[in-house]
């Protein structure tokens, strides 16, 4: 058995955050029952990337990725709530994951405040952009607006050029993935306690807070008054010449903060003339903007003649922190990723076979596994009906 085998999870989620949380639980053997609107299914089925094969609602690669190992039961939640089906389902599961807007749970009869009396053993986890009681000016959100509420947007990139708009971060769904991960942490800990107490609990995840907490090292210092706060977009920055530079075949990132890094660079470059004008300990003690600019100028000229993987390997041997800026292809080709089995081949009945990314942790006794591809819409409705005595 895997670590979560035997737990039943009802997934009411229809967005990336909640579906990702459900996926993280299903990885370890939890039985995740995904309720889908019979008319078209989860909205994530309409989001790309799309497979070259297949038609709606089965062509979304996003849905295929987020819903491995799950069951799909086509059932209109609001109608199920009006009848007794939802209540019956809720009594048969250990966990409910939801990511609809604040207030939606009450609307389907699952009031978090009444959980203790209605479903005392249920672990109910809600993921919303701003928590269960958002102020009116935070009623509507998408990942980019949450990212920008959290401080990460304003400081990405950390530039002082007012002409450059701040960016949304990596890809479309980083705030959702982060919140889904945090939700999985809370659910796992709640299940741990429930093994002893038999009690469920309500968990309220705010994407804003999850993202803000990912800057805890700086933000805690700021709110404590130990680090200055202000309107500067450079407020999260570190000084020094570190950064991304173009190479012959892509980009490389170099980090330099200590005399050891400087010495390693000197060895790698064969003691070039330009380095002699810098004090040995300048990175730690005399890191002036002029020196940073000068150093970056020479680093850029050198790196544009290099190949990213080769120069990174040579640098690491000498103790210089220089790495390739990888893209999706680099990751699939990475011997380290192959060694750890990060990509896993999954055969989807409509989309065909593809190498899916998996999870960043290996567990020696209960490794995460993709046992089945994402379900077709309503694939498990009949089985669920039969199990419930035909009354779903």
């Amino acid at each position, binding site marked *: 058995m895997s670590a*979560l085998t035997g737990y039943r999870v009802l997934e009411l989620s229809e967005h990336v955050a909640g579906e990702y949380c459900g996926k993280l639980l299903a990885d370890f053997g939890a039985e995740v029952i995904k309720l889908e609107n019979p008319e078209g299914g989860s909205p994530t089925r309409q989001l790309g*990337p799309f497979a*070259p094969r297949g038609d709606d609602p089965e062509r979304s690669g996003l849905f295929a*990725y987020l819903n491995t190992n799950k069951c799909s039961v086509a059932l209109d939640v609001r109608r199920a709530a009006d009848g007794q089906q939802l209540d019956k389902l809720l009594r048969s599961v250990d966990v409910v994951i939801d990511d609809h807007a604040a207030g939606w749970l009450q609307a389907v009869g699952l009031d978090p405040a009444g*959980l203790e009396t209605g479903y005392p053993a249920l672990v109910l986890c809600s993921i919303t952009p701003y*928590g269960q009681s958002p102020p009116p000016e935070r009623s509507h959100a*998408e990942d*980019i607006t949450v990212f*920008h*509420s*959290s401080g990460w947007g*304003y400081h*990405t990139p950390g530039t002082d050029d*007012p002409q450059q*708009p701040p*960016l949304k*971060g*990596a*890809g479309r*769904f980083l705030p959702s993935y*982060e919140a889904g*991960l945090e939700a999985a*942490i809370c659910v*796992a*800990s*709640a299940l*741990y306690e429930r093994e002893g107490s038999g009690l469920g609990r309500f968990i*309220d995840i*705010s994407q804003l*807070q999850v993202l*803000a*907490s*990912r800057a*805890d090292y*700086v*933000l*805690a*210092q*700021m*709110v404590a008054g*130990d*680090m200055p706060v202000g*309107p500067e977009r450079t*407020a999260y920055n570190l000084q020094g010449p570190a950064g991304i530079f173009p190479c012959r075949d892509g*980009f490389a990132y170099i*980090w330099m903060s200590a005399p050891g890094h400087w010495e390693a660079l000197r060895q790698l470059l064969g003691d070039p003339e330009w380095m002699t004008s810098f004090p040995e300990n300048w990175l730690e003690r005399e890191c002036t903007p002029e020196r940073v600019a000068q150093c970056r100028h020479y680093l850029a000229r050198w790196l544009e003649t290099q190949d990213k993987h080769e120069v990174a390997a040579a640098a690491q041997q000498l103790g210089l922190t220089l790495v390739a*800026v*990888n893209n*999706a292809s680099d990751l*699939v080709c*990475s*011997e*380290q990723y192959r*060694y*750890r089995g990060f990509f896993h081949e999954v055969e989807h009945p409509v989309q065909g076979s593809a190498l899916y*990314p998996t999870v*960043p942790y290996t*567990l020696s*006794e*209960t490794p995460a596994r993709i046992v089945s591809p994402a379900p077709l819409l309503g694939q498990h409705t009949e089985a669920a009906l039969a199990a419930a005595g035909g009354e779903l």
Partner: protein
Amino acid sequence: MSRRMRGGPLQGVRVIELTKVWAGPCVGKLLAYLGAEVIRIESEGSLDVTRTYGVADINNAPGFQSVNPEKLSVQVNMKTEEGIAIIHDLLAKSDILVENLRPGAVKRLGLDYEAVKASRPDIVYVSMGMFGTEGPLSYQTGYAPCFAALGGLSSRVGYEGGSPEGMNVRYADSTFGAAATYGALVALLHRRRTGVGQFVDVSAVECMSSMIGDTLMDFALNGAITGCDGNRHAQMAPHGVYPCLNDEWISIAVGGDAQWAALAQAMGKPELATQAAFCSLEARKAHEAELDALVSAWTAGRDASELAAELQQCGIAAARSQSSLDLVADPLLWARGFYQEVSDGAGQSKTTLGPSWTMDRAASISHGAPRLGEHNAYVLGDILGLSGEEQRALFDRGIAR
């Protein structure tokens, strides 16, 4: 029994940290915030550098305090066999060990998984490395921006057609810590149900890749290598960050035609919604530069907060892009208890970050980060059962302090 029964789902769980800097301590912080008793083993000869960054007083270092609230500290000299033996004794009475030392360090100390299993067969052992503990690149080390670069994240962040800018330099460590925390909890749950412990091996670089899973799926399905896309989103337009008064910015995301019509109305140009160039998502994507210019010209004269509130009333996702000043003043973050008061050993009060979540029967959080060795007597005496005399003998010989 743990000294601090603070409630929360992990009350009664004991965690030992052999960690440095940010990512490893973040695991302990999350577990402590869920109610676990978390003990940092510290050694004066190999101090966490965050205890010394920018300050003379190692017990008053803001960086250290930011990621170590509600933990205990015991000081053990790890350069002595007797010190290592004490750590083994402590592990025998603990549930989880978290380590993020340099590759090979725990092996040299005699504290690798095999060695610890001899003291505590069902330990949940969490190891954190840039690339994980095994494999051809596991010897390599780096800092947070390296994780993001190697994991594929940085290549996605930047202006269209430009060089990658990468995520902000502070991004990665806490995400790495969160992923390790989930792995630890799954293993802990498995142990509770079966009695079997295990080794959890977490890769920082893979953590970053898991934050762009859909990008990797596009490559898996279509061979697509997606680079920097500015603030674009394939299924929304307008979707971006637009200038406002006083060098402020507003983020706006328009999900469908109805919202676009509402935005056009708010802009005072309802006719835009029906113009051929903008009447559908496809059309708006095809004329996105023109669309962004129109929106920017309109937002430029407005106050970001007021405009966000106004657009929200029209049902449009919009938010001020918050600076650090905005964040520490954000009333919602205060109202939800994200900022909390804790007190240190000397009774001094300090504001810090609480947990990201709220939950029923949550753990209480009231203590700040520990002074070095603040809990020696508790750990050596109450947990390990050493008498005052035995503890003094250890102090005198420099094994513990």
